């Protein structure tokens, strides 16, 4: 226990030392490019559909060094899930990192079950060199057949830690969160590993290994879905 406290204190100290650096990590804008495009392939195994896979494509445009807009699409076989979203955000630099205010509007079509889902999310992310912490709320409305249902507001949270500061050209991290690119859960907590590595000045390789259990808050986190993602990002 004492060892963990010491490590946490030293890491917090490191954060404050690193905070003035410019971030050039997977999610960070380095001020030198305006556009980011990324594509990835993903595959996984899920309790309901067994094996599944898919592709995704993302685009982000930095309007200024503070404002950005973007859009994402994804297609998954197995689940027959077709997703797209538009999003935008504002970055507020603070002396210990950045506060990001992000909004997202998403539409999912679960064709296999004849269900449509419309989601709006507003999140606040405190991004530091080694950590990020996200809180937010999601509006989720779904419809199957003639039945439509608006879920009570869903709390969004995420936490991640990386072994190198975000200024580094490569990184490996661990995350815990109740959302993924195209869904927001209530109390089922995803966790996994992600990484990125700079291949050239304009090209990054990135990937993720994600475990999505069911019943997290039932003290019985059970295997529900395991998935992996591998992609490339190009900036210009």
């Amino acid at each position, binding site marked *: 226990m004492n060892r963990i406290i010491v*490590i946490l204190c*030293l*890491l917090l100290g*490191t954060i404050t030392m690193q905070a003035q650096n410019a971030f050039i990590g997977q999610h960070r804008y380095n001020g030198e490019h305006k556009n980011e495009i990324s594509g990835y392939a993903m595959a996984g195994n*899920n*309790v*309901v*559909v*067994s094996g599944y896979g898919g592709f995704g494509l993302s685009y982000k445009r930095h309007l200024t060094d503070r404002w950005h807009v973007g859009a994402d699409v994804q297609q998954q076989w197995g*689940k027959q*899930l077709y997703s797209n979203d538009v999003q935008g955000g504002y970055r507020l630099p603070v002396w210990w990192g950045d506060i990001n205010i992000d909004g997202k509007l998403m539409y999912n079509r*679960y064709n*296999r*079950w*004849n*269900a449509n*889902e419309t989601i709006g999310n507003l999140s606040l992310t405190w991004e530091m060199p080694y950590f990020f912490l996200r809180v937010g709320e999601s509006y989720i409305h*779904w419809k*199957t*057949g*003639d*039945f439509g*249902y608006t*879920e*009570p*507001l*869903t*709390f969004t949270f995420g936490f991640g*830690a990386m*072994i190198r500061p975000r200024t580094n050209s490569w990184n*490996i991290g*661990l995350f815990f969160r109740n959302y993924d690119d195209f*869904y927001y*859960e*209530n*109390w*089922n907590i995803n*966790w*996994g*590993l992600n990484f990125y590595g700079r291949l050239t000045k304009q090209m990054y390789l990135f990937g993720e*290994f994600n*475990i*999505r*259990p*069911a*019943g*997290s*808050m*039932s*003290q*019985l*986190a*059970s*295997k*529900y*879905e*395991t998935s992996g993602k591998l992609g490339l990002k190009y900036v210009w």
Partner: protein
Amino acid sequence: MVTMKTTHYILLGAVLLLLSACDKVSPIGVLVSGTGVEDRVKMSNAYYQGHKGDGTMLSGYEGDEYTFLVGADSHLTTDDGRMREMLQIALDNNDLLMAHLGDIADTKAEYYIILEDLIDEYREKYAKKYYAEHYLNDENFSLDKVRYPFFPVVGNHDITHNGWALWSNIFHSSFYDVYVLVNLDPPQLDHFIFLDSASGTLGREQVKLLEQGVLNDYYHDTGEKIIRHTFVFSHTNIFRPRSVEFASTFPREEMFFLLNKFSEWETDMVFLGHVHKWDYQKVGDTEYLTLDSMCEANNPQPGDYLVRVHVKKDGTISWEKVRMNYTKK
């Protein structure tokens, strides 16, 4: 170096993470759950297949209707007052069967001993009421022969801390069905389906069984449809009554899968618990009732925690809430 130490801890976490992707290793499961849903369902299905039809066909009508009583989340500990009240209400009202939606007891051996004693006590009362002549005059009569119509599903609190061994010792199977014979000629049955969602998911094994049609006994040999009504009972709630509920519900795909499956079964009513809050929704022709907890610790005041369903001979279904008056001693 700090970063080296940090790296070691994160790498250790990464190794555990990768191990947890294997079927045989589940660090979280090792910490909190002795039996996963896949093992539970395999064991339950083996029992179910071995005992299918063994006392699970009830005769529906003596009058114009039959009724059944449903309760949820009794979390029995040393005080069996509310559980006793439910069993007594069913006995007094001549309910054909009782269904319990899980979290019947908090996981401790002594609580399950209290529960089993209580069920045995009411099995005897049931036998005295419905098999009085046999009970009093038949020397060969044994209570073991009495199928006490109490049908529970398993809840998450039943099986944390290796509780499955305790639960299954009394109730045997977490995945099964029961029929009520409502007409002999032509044959017609009402179908009661009990699903294991204690882990917040049915698990792959149970989904496969459902997709294989293990519970789809829709048709007679002649091709005639024999299921009149279908009722489903499980623990984990689909609908979340409020934003601030911290109970895990089904992941999204599984929620849509279940809504579709219940629709395919032409389910009339689905009964769920877990979240300790009342909720009612109607999806197509299917009513979804999420029951509040009947536990005196969660709801100390008397209240309408049970639901009774009336099924008329003409097929009409209606339901009412049933009051519980027990308060903690």
